[in-house]
């Protein structure tokens, strides 16, 4: 169903190139900055977004399901005005706000009021009524009397609430949201902010990028799934979500090996407060949890045990999953990260691991055989996530030592996950 509305944001055959070799990408960027970007692809580039055309009308809410760390993020950033398209045309009518990292730019040593004023101005707040607006924000975040306190004296939950409250209090016609969720640390704030967000989405135009189907606003007028550089349109919400659930793990795995560079840090000497990370959910909200981990048949403790593996060695990792929600038949994605580095060096997926469904209230013994890739010396974490649409992933961590490949930075090898066996525990 296409609605004829005056467009608030229009993309006309927009394309965005990506280069998976970070060093090459930097050289291209320097040339682009000096001489402008030539048409077409250059050495090492591929189209991450290709010929996307979409018109978002005034008052319309569009949902786009896409992998969080994939090319969908590039499209979101182009729509949000922080990246230039490499081809095509982006037309925005009226003020636009891009919400991606809550509280980015907050400085712990500055006062709450000073941080708020600056953040609000960056997000588009006009000079008129700025003080009054800041008071409203502080009041909304339930932090009355905190204006002269340093940000570092607040809890991270309070900082998250403050950042989200700021976004809610800036008037713009068009919103682009990229994987932004309402802070859930405080139930009362969550309820208040969710209602305010719903009102904001109804009041203007919005494009909501998310990887979690449950984060899509109820009042979404149109739904798309971002796949292979383009947008697949779905008439029916349930069909879009079902398609996403079926393909989610594959898309995440496919994108993981060509992840765009991490968001650049604010280069101040003073450390940045934002963006505050969402805390892990309490245990009763987890879809499942992991216990009784064994590596090579030996008992292991999550996050605490170190092993030395040989390149090419096939290691069997077993664990028990206590399932707290119906998970269907999820995929298992295995990632290998260098210690303290989020971007995976290697990714592999088993999809789905078994014919049986993982049912709420039951426990399952899962065994994964994975082949250790060649690694440079260092400490590496192995993470196995159950991936299904909408549920928080269940994470298993252990550590490995080894020698890394000579792959260029920014790329990840395919992690060879040979097999996975799942049996129900009695």
């Amino acid at each position, binding site marked *: 169903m296409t609605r004829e509305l005056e467009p608030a944001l229009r993309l006309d055959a927009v394309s965005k190139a990506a280069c998976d070799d970070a060093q090459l990408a930097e050289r291209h960027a320097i040339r682009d900055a000096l001489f402008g970007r030539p048409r077409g692809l250059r050495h090492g580039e591929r189209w991450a977004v290709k010929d996307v055309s979409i018109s978002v009308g005034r008052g319309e809410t569009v949902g786009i399901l896409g992998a969080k760390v994939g090319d969908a993020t590039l499209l979101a950033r182009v729509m949000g005005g*922080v*990246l230039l398209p490499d081809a095509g045309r982006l037309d925005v009518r009226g003020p636009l706000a891009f919400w991606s990292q809550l509280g980015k730019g907050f400085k712990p040593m500055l006062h709450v009021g000073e941080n708020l004023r600056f953040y609000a101005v960056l997000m588009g707040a006009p000079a008129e009524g700025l003080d009054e607006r800041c008071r409203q924000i502080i009041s909304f975040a339930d932090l009355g009397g905190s204006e002269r306190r340093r940000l570092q004296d607040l809890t991270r939950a309070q900082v998250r609430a403050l950042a989200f409250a700021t976004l809610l209090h800036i008037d713009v016609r068009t919103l682009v949201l990229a994987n932004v969720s309402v802070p859930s640390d405080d139930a009362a704030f969550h309820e208040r902010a969710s209602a305010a967000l719903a009102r904001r989405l109804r009041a203007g135009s919005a494009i909501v990028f998310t990887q979690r189907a449950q984060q899509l606003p109820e009042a979404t007028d149109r739904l798309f799934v971002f796949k292979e550089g383009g947008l697949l349109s779905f008439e029916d919400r349930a069909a879009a979500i079902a398609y996403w659930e079926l393909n989610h793990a594959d898309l995440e795995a496919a994108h993981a090996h060509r992840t765009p560079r991490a968001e650049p840090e604010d280069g101040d000497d003073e450390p940045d407060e934002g963006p505050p990370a969402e805390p892990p959910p309490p245990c009763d909200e987890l879809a499942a949890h992991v216990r009784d981990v064994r590596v090579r048949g030996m008992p292991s403790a999550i996050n605490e045990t170190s092993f030395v593996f040989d390149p090419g060695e096939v290691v069997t990792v077993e664990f028990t999953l206590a399932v707290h929600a119906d998970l269907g038949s999820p995929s298992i994605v295995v990632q290998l990260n260098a210690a303290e580095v989020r971007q995976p060096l290697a990714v592999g997926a088993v999809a789905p691991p078994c014919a049986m469904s993982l049912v709420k209230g039951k426990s399952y013994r899962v065994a994964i055989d994975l082949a250790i890739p060649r690694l440079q010396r260092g400490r590496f974490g192995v993470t196995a996530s159950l991936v299904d649409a909408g549920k928080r992933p269940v994470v298993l961590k252990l550590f490995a030592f080894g020698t890394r490949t000579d792959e260029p930075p920014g790329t990840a090898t395919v992690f060879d996950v040979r097999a996975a066996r799942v049996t129900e525990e009695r």
Partner: protein
Amino acid sequence: MTGPDLGKIIHVGRHVFVREFKLRYRRADLGLLWAILPLALAGAMIAHLGTRLGVSGPPGPVPYALRVFLGIVVVQVLVDALDAPQQMARRYSGLLATIPFPGESLLVAALGLVGFNLAIRLTFVAALFAYYDVTPAPTTLLALGCLVVLALVGLALGALIAPVSLLLWDVRFGLPYVTGLLYLATPVFYPVASEGLLGLIHQANPLTHVVRAVSDLVLSGAASVPWPAAAVVVVASLLLSRASFAHYRRAMLRICPHV
């Protein structure tokens, strides 16, 4: 996409400047004194050494130290203006890659920082005038105009190189050496040479003429200022600034995602 309006650029730029100011001095008990101490110490040392080493030239009606400080103020305006866009780009590239605010506002903030530093230095120089009992000429206001144009030129050049300096650190590391050479090639600590290699360098160095013009305007009136040439320089500066600022926004959007 059309660019943001000037009002918004100035509004955001003002807040960036205020934030920078607070971040810079909040944890310093001596506060603004740090804005003037480096200049005062370096200038005093150079003036002393210049006199001792005999590079100060023949004694004139204006004390050597005063001439040195006046010259430092002029050259430092250019140095600050060249460096400030780089500083701002380094500190705000992360924000520019996540929040769509006008990048030109960073240049407004950079101009604010240059202006603030200039104001501090001029206050210091004014105190020196009082100390040496020298009365500035009525054309001093025109000298301020020269400094504003110089700041604009520096900012325009700084804006051209700032985006690239984020990824190409040779630019970042090399700029202090270039500005150091600029100091040496400009008659700040010694008199203008009229012959030999140094004479050629002084003739070719535009900053020589600016330093002389400002000194003349402040100390003795506008006698040596070639007004038609000055008008051409002003117009060219404005055109350069306009082109450079337009380039800056797009260049930053290209570079910032890779920083």
